[in-house]
């Protein structure tokens, strides 16, 4: 036992050395056209040696360490906790959502301008997360090109405003509907396929959209992007210092208050908040409607659902289209917030981040998605001094989360009725 452990530990330590030394310890440096190999600093070597030692010791005493950790109750508070009773859980979720919305309403009046701006971004990710949650969490369709629909929404607004002078409010429904139309057209042929193919096709579609935006230079201005996208207006009142569009009035002149640039930020935040609450509400209703139930039915058991008369294509297509619709929504807001869009903003990493939000939150759970969106957006901002390591940590966190808590922070449970007495032994996992 010990001898075998020792050999395994030695092997693991050796592998650690092999995968860390050449990449970390030897650095390539370009000097003009030639390249030079330089050694790293001493602390890197110390770090590698430490890592090798830790891996060796951990693997050597692995049974003892894991056994010991498992017995410490304080480390694992969930170990013998009963799941919350259903009524309590529903009430908890409702109260938490109301509290979050109330807190969000007062946020701009207590926080700084930067914090409000960041909160707007969080809300955009919440809309995206809630939308993708329909596709991935509820319908179980793996969409790796979600950012494409986001891009469609953003570019619809950008192009319409540039060529035809459309305002935010006119573009918002158009962008969302157009994104939904893209989702419909893509989903129609593809959703007949098996799940993994859907993943790769959507990924390819996301890349195609980005490449097209990059190369249709005449229309989209290519990598340089589209600038000067207007801000939203409030009943024809603009928030800039001077009125840009003829016929509009200016907010600070109408109310006769001094001009303040934070008005615009707060206004945009409030609009995003309203749209996020709208998204939350619509999807919450949809989940309880027959269509929402059929999404989950198809996810749980496709064959059973089909034999009960559900049309596979129609149900999947509805989820896919609705998801795309809300991505288009978020895209329009994003374009308005940034005032400038370019294909750079719509890379695969964005899709991965939104997917991570859905998965970290607990697939299907709306409260979980909201909390995860807040965490994923804010934590990197707090750890700015480690910004170099941001994506490294992000990737590692995704892996660790899947290994330790794959069901997410707040897994979703269907509202269900417990049958009485005679079926007391049957636990319902729906």
């Amino acid at each position: 036992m010990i001898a075998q452990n020792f050999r395994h530990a030695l092997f693991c330590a050796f592998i650690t050395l092999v995968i860390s030394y050449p990449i970390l310890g030897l650095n390539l440096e370009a000097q003009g056209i030639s390249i030079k190999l330089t050694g790293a600093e001493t602390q890197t070597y110390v770090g590698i040696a430490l890592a090798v030692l830790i891996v060796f010791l951990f693997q050597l005493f692995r049974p003892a360490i894991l056994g010991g950790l498992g017995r410490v109750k304080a480390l694992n508070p969930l170990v013998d906790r009963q799941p919350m009773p259903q009524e309590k859980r529903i009430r908890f979720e409702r109260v938490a959502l109301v509290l979050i919305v109330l807190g969000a309403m007062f946020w701009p009046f207590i926080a700084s301008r930067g914090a409000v701006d960041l909160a707007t971004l969080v809300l955009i990710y919440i809309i995206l997360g809630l939308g993708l949650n329909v596709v991935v969490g509820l319908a179980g369709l793996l969409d790796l090109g979600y950012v494409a629909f986001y891009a469609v929404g953003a570019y619809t607004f950008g192009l319409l405003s540039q060529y035809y002078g459309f305002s935010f409010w006119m573009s918002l429904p158009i962008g969302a509907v157009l994104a939904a139309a893209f989702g419909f057209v893509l989903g129609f042929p593809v959703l007949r396929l098996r799940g993994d193919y859907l993943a790769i096709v959507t990924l390819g579609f996301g890349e195609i959209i980005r490449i097209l935006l990059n190369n249709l230079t005449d229309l989209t201005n290519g990598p340089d992007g589209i600038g000067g996208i207007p801000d939203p207006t409030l009943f024809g009142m603009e928030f800039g210092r001077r009125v840009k569009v003829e016929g509009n009035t200016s907010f600070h002149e109408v109310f006769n208050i001094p001009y303040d640039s934070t008005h615009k930020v707060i206004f945009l935040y409030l609009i995003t908040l309203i749209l996020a609450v709208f998204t939350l509400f619509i999807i919450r209703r949809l989940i309880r409607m027959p269509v929402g139930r059929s999404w989950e039915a198809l996810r749980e058991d496709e064959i059973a659902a089909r034999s009960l008369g559900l049309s596979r294509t129609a149900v999947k297509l509805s989820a896919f289209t609705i998801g795309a619709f809300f991505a288009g929504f978020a895209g329009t807001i994003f374009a308005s917030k940034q005032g400038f869009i370019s294909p750079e903003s719509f890379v695969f990493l964005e899709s991965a981040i939104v997917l991570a939000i859905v998965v970290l939150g607990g697939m299907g759970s709306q409260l979980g998605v909201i909390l995860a969106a807040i965490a994923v957006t804010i934590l990197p901002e707090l750890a700015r001094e480690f910004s170099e390591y941001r994506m490294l940590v992000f990737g590692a966190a995704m892996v660790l989360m899947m290994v330790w808590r794959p069901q997410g922070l707040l897994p979703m449970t269907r509202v269900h009725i417990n049958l009485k007495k005679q079926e007391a032994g049957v636990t319902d996992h729906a």
Partner: protein
Amino acid sequence: MHDVMYFLQQLINGLTVGSAYALIAIGYTMVYGIIGMINFAHGEIYMIGAYVSLIVITGLAVTSPAWIPLVLLVALICAIIVSSSMGWAVERIAYRPVRGQHRLIPLISAIGMSIFLQNYVHLAQGSRNIGFPLLIEGGISLGGGEDGTFQANLSYMQLTIFIVTLICMTGLSLFISRSKTGRACRAVSQDLKMSSLLGIDTNRIITATFVIGASLAAVAGLLLGMYYGSIDPLFGFIAGLKAFTAAVLGGIGSIPGAMLGGLVLGVAESFTSGYLSSEYKDVVSFGLLILILLFRPTGLLGKPEVEKI
């Protein structure tokens, strides 16, 4: 004459890149065939292979041409060792603990691993792209070139890619069809549970699959890195996507399918950049994927899947 030569050149370029895609695609297809997951980090392993081989080539700093084959061999071996260790570690850390869960979970773990490895290399080696010296120079003229017509060339680098790929593919085919581990691999990909009942150590076979895939990806990393002439930490991602597309194109789970898919994809890309515009080559390859999936969902050589109730 001009058109024929131009066509020939595009065909050669396409087959060159395509055979390297095929090498990477095998890693995807073997893993998918056995445990049914998309190994998203595979493109990063290929990128690490390219980096390690460049590090070794730079470190040896050989100038005399006589030593070049030896240098390449050493670089290849080092790249294979590091990449396959990486493949082993990735499987152990990120995939084995989540095996058998809902199929989204290994996939997300894989995406996380891919992001992690990209940034690992990015932090250690910098984000700028680094030039990869072309150690195999020269080529053979295939005709044309008189009176300003187009001259088709087969460079020795391209020839090397063909030969190395051929050797790897032959070796792999022999390994899969003849060796005991290869037979076990085939058994596991047909039915994992049954083969574990029959006494095959499935964990060992799955690890072996990852290691084989990673080694082939390291070979492709050295070849394509040198062929393209520069590498950066992001260059594994798009190549990984392409290779996965190639694997799906050929019929995922099938090794000959991956080879065929790689070649088809490489040629399609090369003709797009030769006759249309190089910006649209990715659009064409993903478009091709969508079309193939529509009309032949199992890929070119894949077996149709029977749904059992």
